[in-house]
């Protein structure tokens, strides 16, 4: 069973809601940069039924340098206030910095979502010291906040499987509880769109590692390139990819669109037979 700092997760497909305290993230473009806006967004996604809330203070793409001090000041006060307002919600922080991870874990965060392949591996020991959870992500062996340029892999799925399972074992070796480790193939991170599509199609190979798989697909460029659409037009494409990954057993979905994603996952779970329909009367009355 998945568990983060003593909080057991339901046995369904799960939703991780994105809340960015950034002025420049690609989709929300600063909508929740202000503290009040970020807190209201958290209230909203919790109300909509998100299982995990993921707070970010630095956009993924290259751009204005954000110091560790600045990043901490952005995310820490959100974590503190959310912890007080929603004591039972599972709270994740999207950071690749050990120093930031330590501060937010001390403030009550449950998961460190490191999207950049653990550039500061001391994070594992810090996460372990709090009994918290970690996301181990494949980023194409690139430094944080860089874009892929002509990247190639003999077999992208094999590269991802070997990278994330090695990271996951390192985390466990450092003392992170095994039931609190997620692996993430890192769609678009160090990959072109065809790589991300292959990872989507072959989700089953990641699931077969036995580690619970987190998929961060929401409105990303691989969806945009397939459909030739801008971020605010990528919901349907994202949901299609979500369904394909959930069908193959991916467990957690990081998303900007909580209600839509929850509905897709509930549908897929019912098709897979892992959850019963909410109502089951048709033809049975």
């Amino acid at each position, binding site marked *: 069973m998945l568990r983060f700092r003593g909080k057991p997760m339901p046995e369904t497909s799960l939703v991780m809601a994105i809340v960015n305290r950034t002025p420049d993230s690609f989709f929300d473009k600063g909508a929740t940069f202000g503290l009040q806006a970020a807190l209201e967004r958290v209230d909203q996604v919790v109300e909509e039924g998100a299982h995990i809330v993921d707070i970010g203070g630095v956009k993924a793409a290259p751009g204005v340098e954000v110091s560790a001090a600045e990043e901490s000041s952005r995310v820490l006060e959100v974590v503190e206030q959310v912890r007080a307002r929603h004591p039972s919600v599972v709270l994740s922080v999207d950071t690749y910095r050990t120093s930031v991870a330590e501060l937010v874990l001390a403030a009550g965060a449950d998961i460190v979502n490191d999207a950049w392949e653990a550039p500061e591996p001391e994070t594992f020991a810090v996460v372990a010291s709090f009994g918290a959870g970690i996301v181990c992500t494949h980023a194409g062996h690139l430094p944080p906040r860089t874009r892929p340029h002509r990247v190639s892999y003999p077999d992208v799925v094999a590269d991802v499987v070997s990278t994330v399972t090695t990271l996951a074992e390192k985390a466990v070796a450092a003392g992170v509880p095994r039931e609190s480790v997620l692996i993430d193939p890192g769609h678009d991170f160090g990959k072109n769109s065809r790589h991300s599509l292959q990872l989507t199609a072959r989700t089953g190979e990641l699931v077969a590692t036995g580690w619970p798989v987190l998929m961060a697909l929401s409105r990303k460029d691989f969806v945009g390139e397939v459909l030739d659409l801008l971020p605010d037009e990528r919901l349907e494409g994202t949901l299609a990819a979500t369904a394909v990954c959930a069908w193959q057993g991916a467990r957690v979905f990081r998303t900007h669109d909580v209600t839509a994603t929850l509905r897709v996952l509930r549908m897929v779970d019912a098709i897979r037979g892992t959850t*019963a329909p909410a109502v*089951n*009367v048709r*033809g*049975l*009355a």
Partner: protein
Amino acid sequence: MVLALAFVPSPPLLLDALGGGSGELRSACLQAISVLDSAERVVVLGAAPSDGWVTGHIDATPYGAPGTPAADPLPLALAVGSTLMGDRPHHLYGVAGGLVPDLGGRTGLLVVGDGSARRTEKAPGHFDERAESFDRQIENAFAAGDPDLLAALDRELAEDLMVGGLTSWRAAASAARHQMGPGGCAPLGWSGQVHLAAAPYGVGYFVASWTPRPT
């Protein structure tokens, strides 16, 4: 001889593997069945492909529930009756148009059958304006505790209106005439109680019980 009767409907949704039905329907059924507590044995009476005693297993997989199909699945009405009886010992008797043999002893009958499946626009058989008054006749027969009213329901109309319970109810009415009177005295007739009469999904559900009329 029959000591008491309980009447319940047989939607598949009452099967545990399909959710077990709404709390209201389920608890009404269990309340009705409690009149059988004092019986020496309980016989569940429900529609089946042929008349006779039946053994087998409750199997909801034909209705899409997860699991492995049983080799000897019970007919739906008997499966629902058996589900509602739960751990309490009971026998299953299938009716296909015949009558129930002499049951002997102090027997409680759990009779499984449904009203019209044409009660509303969204009903399985769509809306038929005659359905509601037909179902009211059924309800009246249950409320009156009158086997003759139950046996007199029009068979042809019942077929038109997709009334599933007629076969079981006729067999039950015939058995109910062999009532066991109090202390072995002459029978006094039945006192009927309707616990629930509703068509929440367009199918008439009747939950009722018949106990000996008080002296």
